[in-house]
């Protein structure tokens, strides 16, 4: 088996814009904002970046395709710049590209940046585009809430959990994220919401109410990567390192082959399994100290807890209601409010998760800081439960 990239790549600088309805700024400005913060954090100049990976999921909305929008905006002078796209897992995909470049020795310093500028479309949620390909001839045009809502029905069916009990656990997921998001100064939604309000919110896609759903945002996030040795030479004694980054893409079996019952996301399970092996983590329940997961919908986060092995099968609702994933719980999840409240500028979300993990590991979490964070896990999910790309990254520090 390959040795992986554990501790071969250090993060020396990160930046993240305020997420939200950024009427004030375009995609280029968002990238500059995140990049400038990351450079300042690292104490580097932009001329020291040797290669860049830019993540943007919806190129036809405001950003544009190819590497050029990022290269122009950041004035990256004729270095290799690669645009990557893997639906909502795009941010982590950009990080993976940059990390592999550093780990391989191809470059010493690389940039990963993700950006999305969605709010100019005039409504919440993701736009729908069809191009007349084969899938358009048969595949339903379900919305994102519609595809993830199906997890809830299937989960209830598999575990024999009453839909009302499941809905209460789902509501707790959103309640917790609103509590946490209120403390995140760059978050899109910074307002605590009462449980009853969540439970009684208008239905979007049965059983998801509007407060079970994250919206979409404008925003960008960036990371500057190098080797641990160079990090030390920059004066960082105990740098944050990447312990693992793993990606899993569905081969179509969930959607086309009849073994899957719809109550889990097999790509998350596969990516997590490989990430734990790469990071040398044998017991995630004890060794993972915090998570930032792809809580596009409350039911998604609930199921992810089981897919990551942090809750036993069928136990996630009880664990959630017991506060296991609250800010003061055993394994806090979404300390910054997650997609639900920090926001979801699609191509940037994976890097926003890494930003929170990085800051917690460096004990820069402010009033959100949790003690003794050794391993922070991020999970980024693109597509729908039945046809997904999952990314799992694990971060820590080395002495």
């Amino acid at each position: 088996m390959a040795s992986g990239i554990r501790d071969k790549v250090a993060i020396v600088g990160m930046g993240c814009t305020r997420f939200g309805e950024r009427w004030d700024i375009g995609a280029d400005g968002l990238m500059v904002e995140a990049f400038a913060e990351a450079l300042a954090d690292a104490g580097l100049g932009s001329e020291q970046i040797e290669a860049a990976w830019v993540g943007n999921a919806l190129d036809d909305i405001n950003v544009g395709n190819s590497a050029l929008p990022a290269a122009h905006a950041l004035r990256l002078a004729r270095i290799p710049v690669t645009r990557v796209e893997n639906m909502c897992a795009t941010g982590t995909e950009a990080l993976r590209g940059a990390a592999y470049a550093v780990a391989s020795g191809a470059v010493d310093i690389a940039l990963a940046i993700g950006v999305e500028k969605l709010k100019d479309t005039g409504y919440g949620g993701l736009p729908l585009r069809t191009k007349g390909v084969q899938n358009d001839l048969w595949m339903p045009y379900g919305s994102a809430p519609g595809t993830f809502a199906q997890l809830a029905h299937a989960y209830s069916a598999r575990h024999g959990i009453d839909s009302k009990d499941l809905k209460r656990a789902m509501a707790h997921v959103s309640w917790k994220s609103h509590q946490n998001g209120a403390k995140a100064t760059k978050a899109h939604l910074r307002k605590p919401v009462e449980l009853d309000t969540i439970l009684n919110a208008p239905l979007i896609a049965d059983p998801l109410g509007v407060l079970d759903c994250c919206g979409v945002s404008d925003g960008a996030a960036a990371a500057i990567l190098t080797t641990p040795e160079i990090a030390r030479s920059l004066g960082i004694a105990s740098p944050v390192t990447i312990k693992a980054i793993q990606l899993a893409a569905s081969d179509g079996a969930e959607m086309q082959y009849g073994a899957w019952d719809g109550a889990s996301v097999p790509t998350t399970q596969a990516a997590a399994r490989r990430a734990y092996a790469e990071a040398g983590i044998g017991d995630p329940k004890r060794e993972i100290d915090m998570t930032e997961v792809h809580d596009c919908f409350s039911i998604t986060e609930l199921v992810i807890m089981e897919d990551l092995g942090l809750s036993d099968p069928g136990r996630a609702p009880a664990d959630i209601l017991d506060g296991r994933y609250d800010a003061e719980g055993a394994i806090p999840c979404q300390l910054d409010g997650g997609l639900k409240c920090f926001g979801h500028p699609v191509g940037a979300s994976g890097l926003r998760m890494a930003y929170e993990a990085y800051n917690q590991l460096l004990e820069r979490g402010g009033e959100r800081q949790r003690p003794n964070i050794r391993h922070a896990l991020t999970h980024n999910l693109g597509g729908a439960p039945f046809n997904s790309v999952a990314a799992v990254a694990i971060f820590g520090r080395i002495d």
Partner: protein
Amino acid sequence: MAGWDEDPLTMAAEAARVLIADSPPEALRFASTSAYFTDRGQAGAMLDILALPRHIRTSDAANSRRAGTSALLEALLGQREEVIAAAEKRETVPGNSANLSFGDGAAAVRTGVGKGAQLLGHATITHDLVDRYSSREHPASYSYEERFIREVAIAELLLPAITAALDNAGIAAGDIAQAAVAEPAGGCWAAVSRKLGIAASNHCATLEEQAGDLGVAHPLYALGMALTAAAIGEHVLLVGFGSGVDALVFRKDGEIPGAAEMAEALSQGERLERITRFLSLTGGIEMDWGMRAEFAQKAQATVLERVGRDMAGFVGGRDSLGNVQFPKSSIPVNPALNRPEELVDVRLAEENGTIVSLTSDRLNFTPDPPFDFGLVQFANGARVLMEMVDRPPEGFTIGQEVCMRPRIKSLNRALGFRTYFWKAAPVARPQLGDA
């Protein structure tokens, strides 16, 4: 009335599908005055929806409400194995009586040798009587004064045609036991039957009371009702009206497969609770659907040519280990296989499935919310993400058995194009009840 995602093509295919279960016909005919496409053979498109072989002859009949009876007569005179499918979904405008009197529907007839109904005689009168019309510049039907229509229709068309058909059949008017006579205006059959001495009631009138005026499909649907009501050996009169008259006289020699189900179908359906929904679904009002409706559902001719027949016909493939999948792929989805292979065609349209996952989506645009969709599992191994239609009042449930219905998949009003696919529906249609 039909659902938003039904049109004459889907309804004709729905009506015809039971008639091709045992063997393909020699020819497939489509008849309608309201077909969506005006330069695209609808019988050819129906051929693909029904996954029939491409060597079958097809033809479209249009521009007359008797196009269905004329096509039927041609098939009978040719003594061929044919399927004639007639369907109608006509545009109406609020305020016009047609908005309330027109219905959407389809009927199909199979001709050929064997028992069933024997054509004994026939007559046709061609007469360009303009009782009503629709045109490119006036797509909603415009009708003229009823008393004038009734008078001319009775004297110049119905009486002479029916008399000639009875003479041709060699039977007396009093021998007609059941009638399916399309009337251009109420009271025509009452006057004609009184004059000729026919005691039979008119199944077209019964059908109109229950389903509205189905246009081209009307006399063929009523023929099914009349043949169901007739005893073996009794005579049935069929009359199609529009730009003239076709009169056909049959003798029932045996039970006609599918006819009884036509009568039964009239007791099924869903009652609309709101006039706004009725007007919206019939195109009677222009709705502002908001930004979510602002997406182009484009179809590409190259893609349609490459895979359109498999999509329209819901044809998947069986791999070398026996698993069926949809759509087909070069390397099968079956994890036990990992090399390219040729899959054997398997049609899923006539298979029932079971719902694995589902939701009622209220965010996604649909002309008739909510948008139900989820994974459907077939016993042969195929698993397909599908739209669901004919939503029961209590909604769909995981584990529910569903059957497949041909429907409009996508609409592109800007480009004037539609694509067709199959949707999952409850196996049994709901009963209308007394409500």
